């Protein structure tokens, strides 16, 4: 019996041996065969005959295969399809597609990753830019490696002091007798750099003047717009001015060759320079020749360090050899000088590039200075923040391993090698970090103004974003992050065994230990930062509020203008300013807190009779009363006995200890030869130690004398009166006394607060970085919390059906992570303690560490962590168990 279906199956088999037939086509032809068969049957043919004819009509398999083959060739003949280069993995586009798909599907995790990394990258980029700016100081000078500042170390018995300035005769000596020294020049800061400049009838006060040896221009690179560096300042009455002054006094014309009236003298302008760049430690930009000083006696003094001295060594000269040669050659000068007896003078060369950052141990360092400890700390903080962000990435990536496991399994079954999978996950990490980099760039542009207000003194220019070097560094940073954050998940995920995935179970929980460790690290870092910040502020607060040994409230201070050699009747001035107001006034050479001078001094009739550098403070008889100073022994100056000024002095308690006297009383009546004028004075009183320099410095031995010619500023004590009213009256008096002169005054307490600017800056930056570090760490925690609650949905459902309360479940979910956060916080304590002690060591007057900054930081971290997790925990706890259990 004829069986149509069987025959059709047999007929179809004939096509199978030709590979040109596709399934669809065979089906097509089968239909045709059936139609033809039906037609032929209708026409009256028998089944067998109808089938035979239908098959014949269609044609043989061989015939058809040839025809189909043409179609295949047709496709091949066309343009060859695009193939990726050999360096690209074959599945490159597939990886990108998978990565993009993952980003899209898991918006929350992606956001956490990208945001965390972006904040981390932006932070570390800011820090990088700041640190590299600080490191760039003075490196713009041509041949800066050959330029040195000659410092002086004076050793007197066990006491040794280092100075950033040097003795005046050194530079001429170096020029004369040292072939290794190509150039040597001195700077002399006299009269605080301010000069009175006349323009027509108008009088202006200009800042930034400094006396220099003309050779300075062949050592340091100043950019001359007009004039010639080699012959500017050759004669005494010449000046080199910066462009700002040239534009002000000689607008739209050349300043060169014109005269400028400075302090009532007509001075010839022999050069105009550009203002030095911001990363120059020397900020003075108006130069007067050293010869304008005349020839004062102290220019020949081999024992008075008074001038920064710069040298440029010949190419190939050895700095160490030059140092020892200076010591050898200069020895003769010290042997001759009686003031140098018993002391060692050692000159050392400080590389120009080190001046800005490494001068904190040098006295009388002029210009700007930076803090290398801060730079180190900031760099470390930047790295830490980046690390926190990387940990987020690693944690979230491994946490999702369970979800990715199936994909890895399928890829492996399909023949993916492990290296290919690593490539895939690395490219995912790359994609994420690249997005983070772009976002970081945006964050930096937006955050730039904030950053600039935090780092006073450093302006990040907008142009930095167009600088290819910045982008290159950023790209390097990004690839480092991608490598760091991406490699662990890549190796971990690619190691998943397909068999264990498809068998079910094995949700990568073994790795949760690593995740927890990393959470510990994150919180350890965050808590350290937070403890550090609190302690920085504590120390700052301590310094700002430490009793200075004198009253600083409501003290109005201003400088009295004086021509060189002019004598001022200070008693009269004090009277004029205080009479109308019934307030107290006092004159002094220095502003207390801002420092004091130092000179050679020695005890007479006691000790070894050697000279020692001692700080000198010049004040009038009213000073102790106005500033509320206390006596340890003896008495203050007697206002009724003006002659005392010539033969009496006060010392501080530190001087008593340094001189080896056991009590303050012992010092009374002792005779001292004091430095400035070499006069012998007897001690009439011992003042309790007060901070004549900032609290960052130890209180050193001090001599206090009355020396009117040294006075420069007037202090008015406004404690009694109404301040705005008094201020108006004082301004009025100033206008009468010094018509046309600007009235620059300041209040002592505000001025003293500025002394701690460096610490304040560190505190502000530390706050920012702590907040950001904690923020990123919490982002990660948020991701992990949402992930684990999601994973434990069923467990929670079962617990709820068995009667657990919502609160109990919230506690259960939070407890686990809180434990690890607390571990991290506790682990942070010993390490932070070590580092913060180091930092505090720099301050002679410092806080004693207490437990509460640690406790507060730990509690803060815990609180923030719990708040982060609680949202997910509550949501999970309130969910209806029916929803989570329905499917099982």
């Amino acid at each position, binding site marked *: 019996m004829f069986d149509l279906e069987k025959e059709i199956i047999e007929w179809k088999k004939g096509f199978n041996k030709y590979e040109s037939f596709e399934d669809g086509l065979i089906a097509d*032809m089968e239909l045709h065969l059936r139609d033809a068969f039906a037609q032929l049957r209708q026409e009256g043919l028998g089944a067998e005959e109808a089938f035979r004819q239908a098959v014949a009509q*269609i044609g043989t398999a061989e015939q058809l295969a040839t025809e189909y083959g043409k179609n295949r060739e047709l496709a091949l003949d066309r343009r060859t399809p695009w193939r990726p280069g050999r360096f690209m993995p074959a599945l490159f586009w597939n990886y990108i597609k998978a990565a993009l798909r993952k980003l899209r599907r898991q918006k929350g995790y992606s956001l956490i990753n990208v945001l965390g990394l972006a904040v981390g990258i932006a932070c570390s980029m800011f820090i990088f830019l700041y640190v590299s700016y600080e490191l760039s100081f003075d490196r713009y000078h041509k041949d800066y490696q050959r330029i040195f500042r000659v410092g002086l170390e004076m050793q007197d018995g066990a006491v040794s002091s280092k100075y950033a300035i040097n003795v005046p005769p050194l530079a001429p000596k170096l020029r004369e007798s040292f072939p290794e020294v190509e150039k040597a020049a001195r700077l002399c800061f006299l009269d605080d750099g301010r000069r009175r400049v006349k323009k027509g009838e108008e009088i202006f006060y200009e800042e930034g003047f400094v006396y220099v040896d003309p050779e300075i221009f062949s050592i340091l690179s100043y950019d001359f717009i007009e004039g010639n560096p080699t012959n500017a300042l050759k004669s005494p009455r010449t000046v080199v001015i910066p462009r700002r002054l040239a534009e002000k006094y000689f607008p739209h014309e050349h300043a060169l060759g014109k005269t400028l009236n400075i302090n009532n003298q007509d001075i010839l302008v022999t050069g105009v320079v550009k203002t030095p760049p911001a990363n120059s430690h020397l900020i003075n930009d108006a130069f007067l020749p050293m010869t304008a000083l005349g020839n004062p006696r102290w220019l020949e003094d081999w024992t008075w360090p008074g001038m920064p001295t710069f040298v440029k060594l010949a190419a190939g000269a050895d700095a160490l050899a030059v140092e020892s040669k200076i010591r050898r050659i200069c020895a003769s000068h010290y042997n001759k000088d009686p003031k140098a007896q018993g002391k060692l003078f050692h000159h050392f060369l400080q590389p120009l590039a080190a001046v800005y950052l490494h001068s904190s141990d040098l006295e009388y360092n002029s210009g700007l200075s930076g803090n290398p400890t801060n730079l180190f700390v900031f760099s470390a903080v930047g790295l830490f923040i980046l690390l926190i962000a990387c940990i987020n990435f690693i944690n979230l990536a491994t946490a999702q391993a369970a979800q990715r496991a199936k994909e890895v399994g399928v890829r492996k079954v399909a023949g993916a090698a492990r290296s290919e999978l690593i490539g895939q996950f690395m490219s995912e990490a790359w994609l994420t970090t690249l997005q983070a980099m772009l976002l970081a760039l945006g964050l930096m542009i937006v955050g730039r103004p904030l950053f600039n207000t935090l780092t006073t003194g450093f302006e990040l220019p907008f142009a930095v974003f167009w600088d290819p070097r910045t982008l290159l560094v950023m790209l390097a940073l990004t690839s480092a992050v991608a490598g760091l954050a991406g490699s662990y998940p890549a190796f971990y995920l690619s190691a998943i065994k397909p068999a264990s995935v498809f068998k079910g179970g094995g949700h990568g929980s073994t790795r949760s230990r690593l995740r927890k460790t990393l959470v510990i690290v994150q919180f350890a870092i965050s808590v350290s930062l937070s403890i550090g910040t609190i302690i920085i502020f504590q120390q700052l607060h301590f310094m700002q509020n430490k009793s200075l040994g004198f009253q600083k409230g409501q003290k109005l201070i201003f400088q009295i203008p004086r021509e060189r050699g002019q004598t001022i009747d200070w008693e009269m001035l004090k009277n004029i300013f205080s009479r109308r107001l019934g307030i107290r006034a006092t004159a002094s050479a220095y502003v207390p807190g801002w420092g004091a001078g130092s000179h050679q001094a020695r005890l007479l009739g006691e000790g070894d009779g050697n000279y020692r550098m001692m700080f000198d403070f010049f004040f009038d008889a009213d000073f102790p009363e106005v500033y509320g100073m206390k006596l340890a022994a003896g008495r203050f100056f007697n206002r009724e006995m003006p002659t005392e000024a010539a033969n009496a002095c006060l010392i501080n308690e530190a001087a008593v200890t340094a001189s080896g006297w056991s009590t303050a009383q012992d010092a009374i009546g002792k005779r001292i030869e004091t430095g400035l004028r070499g006069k012998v004075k007897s001690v009439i009183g011992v003042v309790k130690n007060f901070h004549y320099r900032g609290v960052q410095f130890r209180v050193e031995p001090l001599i206090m004398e009355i020396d009117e010619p040294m006075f420069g500023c007037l202090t008015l004590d406004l404690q009694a009166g109404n301040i705005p009213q008094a201020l108006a009256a004082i301004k009025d008096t100033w206008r009468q006394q010094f018509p046309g002169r600007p009235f620059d005054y300041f209040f002592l307490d505000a001025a003293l607060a500025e002394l701690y600017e460096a610490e304040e800056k560190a505190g502000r930056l530390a706050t920012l970085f702590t907040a950001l570090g904690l923020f990123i760490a919490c982002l990660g925690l948020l991701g992990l919390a949402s992930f684990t609650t999601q994973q434990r949905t069923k467990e929670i459902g079962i617990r709820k059906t068995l009667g657990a309360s919502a609160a109990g479940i919230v506690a259960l979910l939070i407890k686990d992570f809180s434990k690890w956060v607390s571990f991290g916080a506790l682990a942070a304590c010993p390490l932070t303690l070590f580092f913060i002690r180091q930092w505090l060591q720099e301050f002679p007057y410092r806080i004693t560490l207490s437990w509460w900054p640690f406790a507060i930081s730990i509690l803060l971290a815990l609180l923030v962590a719990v708040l982060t997790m609680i949202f997910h925990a509550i949501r999970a706890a309130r969910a209806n168990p029916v929803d989570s259990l329905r499917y099982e």
Partner: protein
Amino acid sequence: MITKALMAASTKPIILTILKSGEDYGYNIIQRVKELSGGTLDWSDGMLYPVLQRLEKENLISSQWIVSDEGRHRKYYKITVAGRKALVTEMAQWQSMIKALNLIWEPMPETE
């Protein structure tokens, strides 16, 4: 008798023209071709399918499986916009070819 080579060349305009008047399935299409050529075809029915496949690959026609009223699956072919355009060029080519042949063949009846 139309040779295989000529048939192969002309199936494209023939199929496109048939489909221009409406969609149809393979068996019907081949019946129409046979009718048009008056049975002078040296061609098996199966040969149509490679041509349909090629035209589909070239995007001149598109196909769709449809269940007929008798419950039979049929693949219906339909001309595309590109197919219509191709048909226009095809027609122009064939017409100029026919014109050329007519021109050179005009004296032929005289020689007969």
